[in-house]
């Protein structure tokens, strides 16, 4: 009698446990559904390339620009390059005892855009551009000579066929969608130039303070 009763209780316990599990599973499912539902009212993050393009950040490392006239053919760029990529074609002019530069080329099919050459160039003849659309039909046309390297890219902001969009970090405070901002509105936080100005002012104040202290000391 007691045995059957305890068996009954055991069975009922199992049933209630089963029910509780089923209900909690349903609860979790509802939580998941609410998350999915909430996502539907969020704005799409889509950028309609090529009609819209994000403005690359000012430190963007795109295709390298090269100024032939500034180059002294020192080959520092070749030495700092991880794979010695730039080809500097120069000859020694024995009369003037100076290097004469004939050609300069970088193969962007091999370049990893690390920016070392730009960093170390003593005459600043190399610089990074914001160009990233390098697709060609033939990989050999990625080998840019000094003429191709000297071309300036079309800026996203000046291209009339493109709607430029600011990246998330460049949006005004609180804005999430680059489509809806006022273009005159500045980004959140301070610009680099503003920070530099602020630092200059601060250091001036500090130095004036120190000077007054020094004069005080001298007075004593």
């Amino acid at each position: 009698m007691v045995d059957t009763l305890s068996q009954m209780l055991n069975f009922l316990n199992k049933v209630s446990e089963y029910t509780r599990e089923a209900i909690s599973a349903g609860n979790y499912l509802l939580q998941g559904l609410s998350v999915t539902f909430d996502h539907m009212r969020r704005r799409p993050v889509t950028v309609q390339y090529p009609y819209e393009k994000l403005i690359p950040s000012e430190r963007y490392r795109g295709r390298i620009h090269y100024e032939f006239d500034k180059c002294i053919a020192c080959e520092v760029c070749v030495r700092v390059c991880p794979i010695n990529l730039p080809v500097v074609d120069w000859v020694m002019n024995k009369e003037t005892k100076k290097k004469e530069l004939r050609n300069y080329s970088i193969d962007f099919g091999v370049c990893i855009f690390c920016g070392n050459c730009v960093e170390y160039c003593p005459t600043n003849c190399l610089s990074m551009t914001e160009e990233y659309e390098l697709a060609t039909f033939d990989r050999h046309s990625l080998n840019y000579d000094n003429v191709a390297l000297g071309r300036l890219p079309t800026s996203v902001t000046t291209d009339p066929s493109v709607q430029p969009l600011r990246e998330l970090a460049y949006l005004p405070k609180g804005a999430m969608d680059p489509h809806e901002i006022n273009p005159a509105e500045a980004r959140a936080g301070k610009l680099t130039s503003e920070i530099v100005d602020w630092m200059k002012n601060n250091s001036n104040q500090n130095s004036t303070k120190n000077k007054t202290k020094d004069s005080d000391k001298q007075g004593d």
Partner: protein
Amino acid sequence: MPILMNTGIDIELSFNNALQGLGFSKSFAHMLWLPLPMLVVLTAALIGVLATVWLERKISAAAQQRVGPEYAGALGLLQPMADGLKLLVKEDIIPAKADKVLFTLGPILVVIPVVLSWLIVPFGQNLLISNVGIGIFLWIALSSIQPIGLLMSGYASNNKYSLLGGLRAAAQSISYEIPLALSVLAVVMMSNSLSTIDIVNQQNGAGIFSWNIWRQPIGFIIFWICALAECERLPFDLPEAEEELVAGYQTEYAGMKFALFYLGSYINLVLSALLVSILYLGGWGFPVPVEWIASLFKQSIDQAFIQVITASIGIVMTILKTYLLVFLAILLRWTTPRVRIDQLLDLGWKFLLPISLVNLLFTAALKLSFPIAFGG
């Protein structure tokens, strides 16, 4: 009650009367009438599928913070048309070592029962092709033809992924058919009829409060889970699980044969949503009975003007409920992960089957003890 049940617009009768008035014989009028509702329902089903495909793509995109189809027509409305057109002009490939007859027969066997099931879907009192006495049973019987077609195409493709997909589809359909039928049986027991019209009429006494979802909450959930499994939608899309089986039984199909599978799956989804709204959400019933509103404005329900409004409200309500359920299915698709095959069979046999049996017995007990509320 029987007199009230026969109210509503009877287009068939008026059509026949009009033709007979023009001097045609009764049988000729009937012959002219017959293809009309079929064409209308077929068109409705196809438009429903196009709308569902568009909704699926747009809602999926919204759930993933994308835009979705945008350029084909306003808001990408023509995208499903463009998809269909593309499939129509694609080459019809039959693999060299496939069984040609079975390979062709497979998709046909999948689509025909689904389309045929629209026979019993009512959009109003007299707005259905045929008020078959065994209505809902016909649907259950027809839907069990589908796994044969799936198995056939899986086997005929001569491809291991297709075969696995076909086998999974068959196993899934067979295991979920039983709890589905049992939960339908509980509803049928309450309405004392297999006819879809009677099932809806039995729910329309007091508007939203008399819908079956309040009397059959467990049955509703079981039916919805089983319907999703029958439609092979996530979380139960293992027969075509693309990460494991390429595309399951559809792997070797291209062009119009693939389009038939695609069409079949979406018609089936809309059909399942329609049947859920018929069985549990009061079909064409407005949350407040139209009779009450009519009497509030002191209008007779038999007036032609009121009749037209009632019929339109009925159609709109059916479609609204259906698409709410389709929306839920799409939301579930992006919420739930796919179950494993053993979990699928576990859920079907060890959870849904016993619960639906208990639900059936419980409904029987309630019917005996409270015949007023549970259809004596």
